[in-house]
């Protein structure tokens, strides 16, 4: 069993959820999987099931309706897990700061390990963030 954990870290699977962003960061995450940047060569696979994921990519300021869904997804991901906040609005709220239906960044709800700034974060920055997340995952 201990061995499996070692190999899990070689191929982290990514879960992506949008909590109210403008789609800009989401299409850049999609562009990360495209041939130009190709995250899959690092062993990263985009998955739809939270129970198989290791890295949680979140985009967007936390809207009220996404609140419960984000918490549910976060609790369904098995340990060890790393949360990456992609985009300025995910880190602090960005332009959407203090709007009436927004909670100013996801760190008000779940612990965040890596903050990736940028509006919209370029694939280069997202890859930097995932590489950093891998280092953290190794230590956990």
């Amino acid at each position, binding site marked *: 069993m201990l061995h499996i954990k070692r190999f899990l870290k070689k191929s982290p699977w990514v879960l992506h959820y*949008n909590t*109210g962003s*403008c*789609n*800009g*960061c989401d299409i850049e995450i999609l*562009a990360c999987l495209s041939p*130009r940047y190709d995250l899959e060569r690092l062993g990263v696979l985009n998955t739809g099931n939270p129970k198989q994921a290791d890295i949680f990519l979140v985009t967007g300021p936390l809207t009220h309706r*996404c609140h419960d869904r984000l918490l549910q997804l976060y609790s369904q991901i098995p340990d060890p897990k790393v949360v990456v906040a992609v985009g300025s609005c995910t880190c602090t709220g960005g332009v959407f700061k203090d*709007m009436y239906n927004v909670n100013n960044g996801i760190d008000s709800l779940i612990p965040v390990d890596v903050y990736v700034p940028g509006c919209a974060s370029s694939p280069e920055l997202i890859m930097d963030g995932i590489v950093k997340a891998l280092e953290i995952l190794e230590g956990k």
Partner: protein
Amino acid sequence: MKKTITIPLGSQHISLLEPVRFNFSCENEKITDVDYNVGFVHRGIEKACTEKFEYKQVGYVVARVCGLCAITHTMAYTLGIEHILNIKTNKKIDYLRILMLELDRIHSHLLCLAHTAENSGFEGMFMKIMGDRELVMDIQEAISGNRVQFDFVCIGGVNRDISTECEKLAFTNLALLDKKVDDLIGKFTSNWSTALKYKNIGALSYDDAFNFNALGPLARAAGAAIDVRAESSILPYKEVGYKMILGQNGDIYDRNLVRLKEIKNSILMCQNILSGLTEGEILVKFKGKPNGESFTRLEAPRGEIFYYLNANGTNMLQRVRIKTPTFSQIPGMVEIFKGSDYADAPAILASFDPCMSCTAK
């Protein structure tokens, strides 16, 4: 014996980029009723535009309504406020604005086609189209300095001029893309898994297109000649070689083809603009504060976008109303879902190219 089963799709799903929830009521394989929940990404931008931001900043804020048609939102807002402030822009500014609008349309359509291919189970095609899309993204980055959020348009003009290097890059990349789109048209008309199995699936009839107020490629695929580019004289679209593209049956196959042909037309427009660009000012100076109201319509990649602005002579606007293409099309989409197979639902959804961050604001 018939038994109704409810199958949810969303809000988190691998084939969805953004949170939206559909509840399909199915009898055996057929969808009989659809319940939708689209408000996951409601942030309250309309309120913030009138209370938090001054009218000069609002252009940058409304760009963040949607990342896919960011330039269209800024443009519609800017044209509206220029109408109130009575600013006349010169030809060069208009052409540069159309150039960015059309580049945005190309990349958005390519993304939609890639998504449709992925949802119909053709992963290789997804990779190929996403690879081709990088050509347009490169032009956008070279011109505006950012890949997605351009922030290119400002009140009175544009923020950056095109350098000769950018022009050269744009010409080579567009010529390359033109060839690749020709190739894609061949694949989308003859290949079984992307094209032929989607004939007569998810169809919208000509009459329904009018009854449900369909817009953009969804309406044009059904043969309805609905395009704001032909109905509006704010931007000189007719001078740069705009042509209406119509389909026949309104199914997924036709929608894909209409998108591909529109990309061809947009490439032609971009090339015309780039070869006919003259020297000139890129920013017009203006004075005063806005007072009055304006209605602006513009064609986004997904259809008509509408801005209502009301200003009362102060730095803050009194009311900003944003109406986006997907917003008014949802009743039509629900109608298309009824009667089709559940297995086709993700592909139909992807072919609508829905934009939820637009819808919920």
